[in-house]
């Protein structure tokens, strides 16, 4: 086949196996960044138009335009362009750049509210149509139990994907480039027929229907590309086509689904193979190679979904989590860094700093030193990339996994995830002490027990009580997830994305916790200091009087770090006791996105002294400004949480001033590399690195318009600081900055 000419042969030719193709064909690159090129004229021209659109979007309350007459899908819009003459990678979500589509399959009410929030009205046609249609949201609320509703209302469970797409699923978009959609379709037909031999039980019936729909959408993908004049039924012949085919597949996914996180996977080294081949054959030079990646990334930056204001409160800054995992090492020990890993990161210079795509460096000891230091330099310059520990994930997920959203690893095309939002562990502690009553409202939200409201709290008694409540919550939480994902599969199934998976993928159910540092410090206060509840006239504990000193999480003190690690492990084990839908494997993350603010606002005063309604620290971070031993002690505390119990990721966001790291730029980069390397050697999983002075943020807080591109990492993703709400900006400013006096 012409499409594969020049590629090394292998198993990948007989069966869908992108990993095998990469391993046989990629060229590791150990050199530095000196080969990289600036933006081409066409890229600059598109970028200029894009920036104008961004400014208009911002001026228009954050949403440029909405098509309220059309339900978003692969074929529902005419082809759209931003600058047809200069584009070499085509495809927009709707018929015009940054115009948002409507996707009511998750829930018509959410879609209606989102449209209204921006002063639009959903068309009668769509309203009428969805009158006769069950959405995911309808299904879930038909089945939710009283207990589930109470947990949701009290804020113990928040951010549940029960009214919009669940997201977090990564299609193997590379398959379309390597094999062409027709081959993928033929393989699905074979799988479909193979299911005929089985007894028609629930699972087989469901899967047969799903595969049938996957086939329809693979066909639609071919038709969608046809609208732009491309034939993706066949494999890509050139580097341009490979980039384009991958992008069409991704585009089809975001037209069909509005999941919170719609991540890209791990495409740069895959694409590098095509780029190298074209360069070798004289069809492409370095300028052309960079232009392809720049145009691709520009398109990724145009991804938009329509959200409600409540959603934006949880996930600030209009993120889409087009996460691309770069680097990492292979099972054979070779680094997976190629020139295209550099080209991808280099877009942060060619196209200016931006939060998307969410560039995630899979950091391994095996990475070339030059690449490590290049990444550190990019962090110092842009604060736009995050690091995750490949040496920790590779034994679990192999060497062809991607990162979904912020920290969720998944074997690409072989594993999918049921996203489970998170529960508020800090609030659960307060509810447990109150014998099942919500500490803010006094309403009963959990099973009843005698409140521990008389006299000094006894640690053993509190712990036993808390673990009992964890057991109860874990069971209800798993059951809630089961309801949500049953209904999502039924009413809002990801036809295209799952068509780009193996037909029998492994399923993960990803649970999450928020407020871990509050729990650790509060239990530490009860154990090491003297903590007495203060009650109101109804016996409800509304405050705690804590006398004496206690160790705080974030200082590398095993006495309290051990509590955090124990609670995480206990919670994970408790989750595993309840069976997950479709045989999914339970996983857990310590990640808040920006919901640490909402969670905090729903939580009362704690034994460790956190005021009522004040924000939590993000992810697994220690509470702001409780670290007294400096940055590395804080990292060591977080590194003690076990990845085995938290295979969905442990997020750590880290801010420091450049002056802290050394007297010269070269030393700063070397020292930053050493920090990342050391943290990961100690077992840390994820690190968001921000390098800037607090004074810059303070300025940007006062005059956001003067810093339109100031990008910061918040919790597993990056945002433009200026688009955050005042409350979110204040929370970022309140965080610990590691600075040296």
């Amino acid at each position, binding site marked *: 086949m012409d499409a594969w000419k020049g590629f090394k042969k292998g198993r990948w030719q007989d069966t869908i196996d992108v990993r095998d193709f990469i391993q046989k064909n990629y060229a590791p690159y150990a050199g530095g960044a000196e080969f990289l090129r600036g933006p081409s004229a066409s890229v600059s021209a598109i970028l200029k138009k894009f920036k104008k659109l961004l400014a208009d979007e911002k001026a228009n309350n954050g949403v440029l335009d909405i098509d309220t007459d059309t339900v978003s899908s692969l074929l529902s819009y005419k082809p759209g362009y931003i600058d047809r003459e200069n584009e070499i990678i085509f495809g927009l979500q709707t018929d015009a750049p940054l115009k948002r589509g409507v996707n009511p399959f998750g829930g018509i009410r959410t879609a209606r509210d989102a449209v209204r929030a921006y002063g639009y009205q959903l068309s009668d046609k769509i309203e009428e149509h969805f009158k006769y249609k069950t959405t995911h949201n309808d299904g879930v609320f038909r089945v939710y139990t009283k207990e589930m509703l109470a947990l949701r209302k009290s804020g113990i469970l928040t951010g549940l994907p029960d009214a919009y797409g669940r997201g977090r699923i990564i299609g193997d978009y590379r398959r379309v480039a390597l094999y062409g959609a027709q081959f993928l379709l033929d393989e699905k037909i074979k799988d479909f027929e193979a299911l005929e031999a089985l007894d028609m039980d629930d699972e087989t019936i469901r899967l047969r229907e799903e595969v049938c729909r996957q086939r329809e959408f693979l066909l639609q993908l071919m038709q969608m590309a046809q609208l732009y004049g491309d034939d993706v039924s066949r494999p890509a012949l050139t580097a341009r086509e490979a980039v384009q085919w991958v992008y069409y597949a991704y585009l089809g996914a975001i037209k069909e689904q509005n999941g919170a996180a719609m991540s890209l996977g791990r495409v740069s080294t895959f694409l590098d193979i095509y780029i190298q081949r074209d360069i070798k054959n004289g069809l492409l030079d370095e300028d052309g190679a960079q232009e392809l990646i720049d145009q691709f990334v520009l398109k990724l930056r145009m991804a938009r979904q329509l959200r409600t204001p409540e959603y934006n409160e949880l996930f600030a800054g209009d993120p889409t989590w087009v996460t691309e995992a770069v680097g990492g090492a292979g099972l054979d020990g070779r680094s997976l860094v190629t020139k295209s890993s550099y080209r991808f990161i280099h877009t942060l210079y060619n196209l200016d700093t931006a939060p998307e795509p969410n560039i995630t460096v899979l950091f391994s000891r095996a990475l070339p030193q030059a690449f490590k230091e290049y990444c550190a330099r990019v962090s110092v310059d842009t604060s736009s990339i995050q690091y995750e520990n490949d040496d920790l994930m590779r034994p679990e997920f192999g060497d062809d996994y991607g990162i979904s959203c912020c920290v969720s690893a998944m074997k690409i095309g072989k594993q999918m995830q049921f996203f489970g939002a998170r529960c508020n562990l800090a609030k659960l502690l307060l509810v447990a002490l109150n014998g099942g009553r919500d500490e803010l409202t006094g309403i009963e939200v959990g099973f009843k027990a005698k409140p521990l409201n008389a006299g000094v709290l006894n640690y053993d008694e509190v712990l036993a009580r808390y673990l009992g409540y964890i057991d109860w919550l874990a069971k209800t939480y798993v059951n809630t997830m089961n309801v949500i994902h049953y209904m999502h599969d039924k009413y809002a199934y990801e036809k295209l994305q799952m068509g780009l998976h193996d037909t029998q993928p492994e399923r993960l159910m990803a649970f999450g916790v928020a407020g871990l540092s509050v729990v650790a410090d509060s239990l530490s206060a009860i154990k090491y200091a003297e903590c007495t509840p203060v009650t109101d006239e109804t016996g409800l504990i509304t405050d705690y009087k804590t006398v004496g000193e206690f160790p705080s999480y974030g200082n*590398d003190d095993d006495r309290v770090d051990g509590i955090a690690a124990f609670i995480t492990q206990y919670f994970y084990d408790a989750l595993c006791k309840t069976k997950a839908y479709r045989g999914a494997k339970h996983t857990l993350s310590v990640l808040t996105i920006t919901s640490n603010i909402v969670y905090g606002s729903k939580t009362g005063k704690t034994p460790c002294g956190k005021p009522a309604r004040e924000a939590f620290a993000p992810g697994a971070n220690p509470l702001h400004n409780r670290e*007294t*031993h*400096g*940055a*590395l*002690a804080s990292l*060591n505390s977080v590194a003690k949480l076990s990845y085995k119990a938290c295979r969905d990721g442990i997020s750590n966001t880290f801010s*420091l001033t450049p002056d*802290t*790291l*050394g*007297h010269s730029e070269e*030393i*700063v980069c*070397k*020292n930053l590399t*050493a*920090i990342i*390397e*050391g*943290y990961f*050697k*100690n077992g840390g999983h994820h690190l968001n690195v921000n390098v800037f002075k607090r004074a810059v943020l303070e300025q940007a807080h006062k005059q956001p318009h003067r810093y339109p591109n100031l990008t910061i990492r918040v919790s597993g993703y990056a945002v433009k600081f200026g688009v955050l709400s005042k409350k979110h900006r204040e929370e970022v400013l309140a965080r610990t900055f*590691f600075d*040296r*006096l």
Partner: protein
Amino acid sequence: MPKIHSIETLGALDGPGLRTVIFFQGCVMRCGYCHNADMFDFDGGKEMSAEEIAAFCARYKSYYGQTGGATLSGGEPLAQADFALEVLNALKAQGIHTALDTSGAVYAPKALAAADLVLLDIKHTDKDMFLRLTGQPIDNTLKTLSFLQKKGKPFWVRQVIVQGHNDTVEQVSALKALAEGAQKIQLLPFHSMGAHKWEKAGLTYPFKNAQPPSEKVMQQLRNAVLN
């Protein structure tokens, strides 16, 4: 009883690589621009044994790489010379590279000999100015310097540049001449970020109105040291 003020785990400015910095409590000098005024007094701080300190530092080995390690600073670590020696030996037993950040105000040859690297902060080259700036005579600092030179000990010379005190090419040239054998000469611009520590300690900050030297002056002085 040996006294520690605190331990900072991310030190990137006091010696090569990433370093754990152990701040000793108490100092014999009283430099007006000191950014660690909370470490003047020998009465403050907390007790920690040399073994405890070394065990704590060992938790950070993965960050040290080929170049990093631990730095004894303060306060003046050599004001507790026996303890400093114990800490240096305990760190060495853990295989950790050691740096000793001292003003030389206390002459302690055994501790100097035990450190892998000495960061000698020479506050001024002129003996009268030195006394005025620090409240201590320059003699022990010079003795320390000559010990390092004679023994061929790896050392860096450092100086905080303060406007109107030592910010002249002549002064830093004299420093360069004095610092013969140093692996590095570091000129550090004065900053006022330690002012709040004076207030907290109930002291009046003598450099309240002082400005940091300009980048231009710093560049000039650095060039003078290089050439």
